[in-house]
């Protein structure tokens, strides 16, 4: 047996396989990773500190930028934490609108994952398709909120404006289109032998360690554990909607991909039900003067299921017109550091980006 020399390899901070600037320092022997450590610090923007200098509403301009592919779950989680502190009721119609927005956000984020996951396997047709199709969802967001990526649409007390005329019909048409496209995606990605061979048995998260390691979302469900904030602690109107939580056994990249593939279909199912069941009425329990609004002193913890798993906001108020402290914990905080460092040893160098994508690592969320 030939003993190969151990060398150090730096993956990132600029690398097409990483969604944002982050470095993974790898010790490798031949093609095999011996150890890995995550280095962040390239994207620190001190958002949590800056939020302390802004009032409750101004914070929205910052917090939707915690993680670029997923602005809406951040808005909703913060809004829910502030509503809990302020004891503010949300109108029923706004709850339905929020659910629709969250599921659209899940779908557009799925499209980005789909692009990244297949791109890191060397399959370049799928990213073209999915990023193209994602635009149809961004069109819906643009019609609804005026913005394609950052919306600042969900506010404490509801949503900022009602649905535009004809928006629900357009949304239903888009859902029909995307549902058809998902069958085609299956043919080019999930039925593709290259993807299957690359994904099966790679980047395994052990089921017995998953929860202890802080694994959440599709990665956790890929180990066979049925856990989802939408059913464990239902928020908005998720308890009134009929949907399934898909799980898979194995804990590898393949299992996580199959979970996501099914989840996006569930999102379509949720959106159709929410549009059908949505009542007429108020959409915003108005804050009288948002710029002078004070929130009663206290602490609140809100959590929401994003496409990558649980997002939690811990919000502290001292009774003033600004948040005293806001701390966010996204899925990437554990997936991108502890989990990644634990599952990379023994993997092939070529699979590192592939595993990173399947864990849903979003570097700006780690350092904020």
């Amino acid at each position, binding site marked *: 047996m030939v003993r190969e020399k151990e060398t150090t390899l730096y993956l990132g901070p600029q690398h097409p396989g990483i969604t944002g600037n982050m470095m993974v320092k790898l010790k490798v022997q031949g093609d095999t990773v011996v150890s890995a450590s995550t280095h962040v610090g390239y994207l620190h923007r001190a958002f949590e500190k800056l939020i302390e200098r802004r009032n409750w509403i101004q914070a929205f301009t910052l917090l939707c930028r915690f993680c670029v592919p997923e602005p809406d779950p951040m808005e909703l989680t913060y809004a829910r934490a502030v509503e809990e502190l302020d004891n503010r009721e949300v109108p029923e119609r706004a709850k339905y609108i929020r659910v629709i927005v969250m599921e659209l956000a899940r779908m557009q984020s799925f499209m980005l994952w789909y692009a990244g996951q297949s791109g890191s396997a060397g399959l370049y047709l799928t990213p073209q398709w999915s990023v193209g199709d994602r635009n149809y969802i961004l069109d819906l967001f643009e019609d609804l909120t005026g913005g394609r990526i950052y919306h600042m649409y969900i506010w404490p007390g509801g949503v900022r404006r009602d649905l535009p005329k004809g928006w629900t019909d357009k949304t239903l048409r888009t859902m029909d289109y995307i549902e058809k496209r998902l069958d085609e995606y299956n043919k080019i990605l999930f039925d593709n032998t290259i993807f299957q061979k690359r994904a099966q048995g790679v980047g395994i998260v052990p089921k017995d360690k998953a929860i*202890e390691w802080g694994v959440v979302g599709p990665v956790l469900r890929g180990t066979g554990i049925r856990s989802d904030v939408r059913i464990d602690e239902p928020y908005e109107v998720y308890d009134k909607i009929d949907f399934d939580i898909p799980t898979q056994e194995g804990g590898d990249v393949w299992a996580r991909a199959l979970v996501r593939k099914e989840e996006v279909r569930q999102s379509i199912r949720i959106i159709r039900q929410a549009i059908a069941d949505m009542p007429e009425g108020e959409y915003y329990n108005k804050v009288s003067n948002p710029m002078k609004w004070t929130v009663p002193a206290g602490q609140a913890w809100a959590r929401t299921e994003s496409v990558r798993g649980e997002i939690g906001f811990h919000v502290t108020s001292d009774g003033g017109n600004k948040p005293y402290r806001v701390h966010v914990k996204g899925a990437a905080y554990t997936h991108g550091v502890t989990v990644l460092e634990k599952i990379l040893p023994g993997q092939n160098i070529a699979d590192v980006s592939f595993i990173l994508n399947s864990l849903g690592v979003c570097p700006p969320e780690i350092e904020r």
Partner: protein
Amino acid sequence: MTDLLKENKLLDAITTSFKIEGKVIRDHRVEVNADKNTVSSILLFVKNQLGYIHLAHMTCVDWIDQGEYEMIYTVYSPVDKITLFVKARIDREKPIMENIDTIWDQANTYEREMREMFGIEFPGLIGEHDFILEDWDQIPPMRKEFDTHKYAAETFFTRPGREDAKDVREEINKRSGAKVPDFAKKYSRE
């Protein structure tokens, strides 16, 4: 209205075992206030005996007026579906807190961040010192007395022409002599 049976049972189990105060905040939410030296024992107890195996979050709140940091450990039970907050206060001048990365590996990341951002020491904490901030020589930036405006003014230079945050259109006008359109008039509906 739920009867909060599970929440009260959890609170009783902890408060009687450790002789500490706590309360049920609402359904799915329980908090206990612990001494800083018993936090790791409580966390071990709830993890091993009561099934609170998911460390959902760890945070620190700087109560500068009271001279204290508030450490908050958020743990969750996938069976009970209850979130438990274990809170403890530490002195903010010499902040030292028990290291719990032997209980949950992922706590290491939170503790490294808090060491940089609040200056809290966690004895026995493994990990390279620089996590997010590199070569930082100021006070820990998440402390309340750290002034971001002052730091920015002293550290970064201002782009010529923006020393006092002037209207950029006026500055362009002055330098190039070009006429800046009056947008308010141009787009007026009258």
